[in-house]
């Protein structure tokens, strides 16, 4: 389905149409979290499909369609308490605006990303599927694009008495050192990596994760990623090399597109 670095173009087209099976979609979902190039390609596909849909020849609406819609709208408005009465409307809009303001703020988005990084690190080792589900929420939260359902899920998580709470403080003047975590399931070939405090990279450069093997074997590339403006990055791979005996992991800076052999220096490593 992919060339290890990017999703194959025909598959990305089918993904945009929703024509892949759920199993086929999972690795694409994970890859899109970290790959700006494939995400941009998907955006262009979606736009083209929107234009294709709009080439549909026009026909007249069925008689009375507008009246039926307005009647249903009126019922919906009453059921949801969304009508012209200011007392009913104002709190609803105010709440939505408040939430959107919070998540549109880069500061809060970064804070949320940090909180999620800790939460991701705290959840069970085997539950990579759950992490894969959390990943898109994190990504959307970082972009400030999040809908009410997901927002409610986030709010529930963050206010749960069972959830780990982390106090945030003003960042020190000196830049904190980069840190990362990797969770790798050799049996299934699933891998999760999170990193914080990563330095921004010059144009044309990208971070790359390497699987370090014992016995002097060649390090294996395990995906490229770029941090957001706060230095946070997450990568979830459903198709990492499986069945390996792993000595450790390393992160290097490579040219965009990734490399087949790591370029020194290693900016992060763990054994």
């Amino acid at each position, binding site marked *: 389905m992919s060339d290890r670095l990017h999703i194959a173009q*025909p598959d990305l087209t089918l993904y945009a149409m929703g024509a892949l099976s759920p199993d086929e979609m999972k690795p694409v979902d994970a890859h899109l979290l970290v790959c700006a190039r494939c995400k941009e390609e998907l955006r262009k596909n979606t736009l083209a499909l929107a234009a294709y849909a709009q080439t549909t020849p026009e026909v007249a609406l069925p008689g009375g369609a507008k009246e039926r819609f307005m009647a249903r709208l009126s019922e919906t408005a009453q059921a949801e308490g969304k009508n012209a009465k200011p007392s009913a409307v104002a709190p609803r809009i105010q709440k939505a605006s408040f939430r959107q303001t919070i998540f549109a703020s880069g500061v809060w988005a970064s804070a949320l990303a940090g909180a999620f990084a800790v939460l991701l690190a705290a959840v069970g080792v085997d539950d990579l599927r759950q992490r894969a589900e959390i990943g898109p929420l994190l990504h959307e939260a970082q972009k400030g694009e999040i809908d009410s359902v997901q927002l409610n899920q986030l709010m529930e998580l963050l206010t749960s008495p069972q959830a780990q709470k982390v106090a945030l403080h003003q960042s020190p003047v000196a830049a904190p050192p980069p840190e990362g975590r990797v969770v790798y399931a050799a049996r299934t070939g699933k891998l999760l990596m999170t990193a914080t405090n990563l330095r921004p990279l010059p144009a044309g450069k990208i971070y790359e994760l390497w699987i370090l093997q014992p016995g002097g074997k060649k390090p294996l590339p395990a995906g490229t990623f770029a941090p957001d403006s706060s230095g946070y990055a997450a990568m979830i791979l459903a198709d990492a090399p499986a069945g390996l005996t792993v000595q450790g992991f390393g992160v290097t800076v490579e040219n965009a597109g990734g490399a087949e052999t790591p370029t020194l220096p290693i900016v992060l490593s763990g054994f």
Partner: protein
Amino acid sequence: MDDAALLDAVAEGNQDAMAAVFDRYSRIVYCIALRVLREPSLAEDVMQEVLLQVWRRPQSFVAQRGNLAAWLSVVTRNRAIDVLRKRSPLDPLGEMPLPDPRDMALESEQSWLIDKVRGVLDTLPAEQQGPLELAYFQGLSHTEIAERTGSPLGTVKTRIRAGLMTIRKAMNA
């Protein structure tokens, strides 16, 4: 009144503004749903559902400042395919990111763009047009299309991709 102002009014619970959204977009939404479902009553149900989503969550459109026509078109097609396949929605309405407004900013530009796409579709080879239509408006998987047309799976994928690339080129020309 442009879409953003209209949606601001919808967010305030203004049903007249929602009626204006209906006047502006109901026809394209209905036509796309009908093309997929071929049943007017089902198409009208999908149209109502999609437009009511605009009523329920107008702030998400305002916040993203996307192109409403494009969003409605894709969401309507996806929801109609769900109905066709009698499956639960793969994605809740509203999950799809809005296309960037820089791509299709003005209504007049958009209309011109759609005409250009119509033009290239007429010239598209049948072996590309068929799989694209089957995949997008009939919701068939690439495997189902391969079985139906007797073409290898890889060929089906390539032809769908080639058809879409032709549309993209027309949009950028």
